[in-house]
C-alpha cells in the first residue's frame, strides 16, 4: 500500500513535468504546443488541488482537530496558485511570452516551496494521523474526477 507522501509526491512530479514542458514551448513561442501542454498542466493542477481540498484536508482536519493550522495555509497558497495559473492562461491566449514566463517563474517558486512544506511536513503528518484509514482516503482521492 502506498502512502499519502508517495502518492501525492509523485503527483507533484507529474505536475512539474507538464509545467516544464509547457513553459519550454511558451519560451520558444511554440504556441500551439504551449497551449495544449498548458491545458494539460492546468487540468492536472486542478485535479491535484481538488484531491487535497475535497478529500485529504477535510480528513486531516477531522482526525487532528486542526482546522486553522497547516491546511489553512495550504488552502491560501492554493488560491495564490490559481491566480497565477489564470495569469498564465491569459498570457498563453494572448501569445505574450514575457507575461507567461513572469507568471510561470513566480508560480514555480510558490509551487515548489508549497510542495516542500507538504512533502516535508503535511503528508508525513497525514500518514501518521490517518493510520489504518489511509487506504480509504487514498481511494477517495483517486475517485476525485479528473
Amino acid at each position, binding site marked *: 500500500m502506498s502512502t499519502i507522501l508517495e502518492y501525492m509526491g509523485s503527483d507533484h512530479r507529474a505536475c512539474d513535468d507538464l509545467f516544464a514542458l509547457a513553459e*519550454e514551448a511558451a519560451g520558444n513561442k511554440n504556441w500551439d504546443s504551449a497551449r495544449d501542454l498548458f491545458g494539460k498542466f492546468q487540468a492536472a493542477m486542478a485535479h491535484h488541488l481538488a484531491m487535497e481540498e475535497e478529500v485529504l484536508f477535510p480528513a486531516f482536519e477531522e482526525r487532528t482537530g486542526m482546522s486553522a493550522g497547516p491546511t489553512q495555509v495550504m488552502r491560501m497558497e492554493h488560491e495564490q496558485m490559481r491566480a497565477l495559473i489564470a495569469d498564465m492562461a491569459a498570457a498563453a491566449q494572448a501569445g505574450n511570452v514575457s507575461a507567461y514566463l513572469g507568471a510561470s*517563474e513566480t508560480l514555480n517558486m510558490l509551487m515548489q516551496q508549497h510542495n516542500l512544506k507538504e512533502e516535508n511536513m503535511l503528508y508525513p503528518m497525514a500518514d501518521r494521523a490517518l493510520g489504518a484509514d489511509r487506504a480509504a482516503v487514498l481511494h477517495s482521492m483517486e475517485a476525485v474526477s479528473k
Partner: protein
Amino acid sequence: MSTQPGLAFSQAPPFSLPLRFFLTAPMFLIAASILIAFYPEALASRWTPQALALTHALTLGFLAMVMLGAMLQMLPVVAGSPLPAPRFVARASHIALTLGTAALLAGFLLGTPKAFAAGVILLLAAFAVFIAAAAISLARAASNATVNGMRFAVASLVFTVALGIALALLRAGWENAPIIEGASAAHVGFGLLGWVLLLVAGVAWQVVPMFQITPPYPPRLSRWLAGAMFVLLALRAFAPLLPHRGVILLDAGLAAGVLLFAFHTLNLQSRRRRKLPDITLDYWRLGMASLIACVLAWLVAQLWPAWAKSNAYPMLLGVLFLVGFAVSVVAGMLYKIVPFLAWFHLQAQLQAKAGTIPNMKQMIDEKNLRLQFRLHLAALALLVAAVAWPDALHMPAGIVLALSALMLWGNLSSALRRYLQHGGRLA
C-alpha cells in the same frame, strides 16, 4: 506557538525581517571593493591588516549577513520550525552584526584596540543571539537532509566564532606564532568549509531541484556529506599535533567532499527540466566551477611546494572560494528570494487579483540582472589576475567589484521599490 515539530510552518516572517539583512549585505561588498581599490596590501598577503579587513568584510559583512537572513526565512519552510522570537532575533542580530563588522574592520585597519574590542563584543552578541535561536529551531525541527546540513553548519559557526574570539585575544596580547597559525587554520576551516559550504550544500539539497526542476541529489550524498565534512574539519583542527601525512589525508578528504558536491550539482543542473535562461543558474554554475578551481589550486600546491608557501596561493584560494563560489551562489539565491518575497507578501497583503501586481520577473529588470552578472564575472577575473599582480591590478579589480556590488544593491532595491509602489507595507 505549537512546540510539536512540523506544525508551525505557517509563520513566514514579515518581509522587513529578512530584507534588512539582504539590503545591508551589498554595502559590505562595496566596502570590500573599496579596500581592494585603495590598498594593494589587501591582496598582497593574507596576513596584512588590510587583507584581514577585506576577508571579514566579505565573510561577516556580506556572507554571514545574507545567511542569517536566509535561515530566518527558510527554517519555517524547510524545517517547519520558525526561529523563536523572530522579530527580536532579526533586529538584534542584524544591528549587532552590522555595527560589529564595521568596528572590527576599523580595528584591523586603524589598529585601535577599542574599535577591535567593540567589534568582537558586538559580533559575539550577534552570533550568540542568532545561534541560540537557530539551535532551538533546529532542535524542534523534523529531521531531513537540509536540517541535518544546517545543524552541522551552525555547529561549525559556533567553533568559528569561538576560535575567532580566541584569535582576537591572542592578537591583543599573547604573541605565539604557532598557536595563532593553528587556531587561524581551524577558524578558516570551520568558517568556510563548515559554516559557508555546509549551509550552501544543505540549502542546495532543496533549492537546486526546485528552481530548475532537476532530479534530486543522491540521498547517500545529501545524508552523509555534512557529517563527514564536519568530522574531517574537527580532526583537521588538531593539525599541529598530527603527522604531516595525516593532515594531507584530511585535506584530501575535504577536497573530495567539495568535488562531490560541485560535480553532483553541475550534473543535476545539466539534467534540468526548465531549460530557459536563468541568472541564478549561471551564478550557481560559476560558483561550482570556482569550487572545482579551488581544489585544482590545492592539488597544484601539493605538487609544487614553493608555490604552496607563496603569498599568492592562499590569496588565490580565498578569491576563488569567497568571491567565485560563495558570493556567486549567494547573489544567485538573492535574485530568487527577494523578488519572490516581494511578490508573495504583496499578494498576501492586498489579496491581489490575477495580473494586478508585478510578477517576480517584473520586480527586477532582466537586463540589469545580466549586466550585474557580467560585472561580477569581470571582477572575479580581475581579482584572480590581481593575486599575481596586486600592484598593477588592485585598482581596476576593486572598481569593477564595486560597480557589481552597487548594481546588486540597486537590483535588490528595485524589487523593494516596486513592492512599495504597489502598496506593500514594511511595518
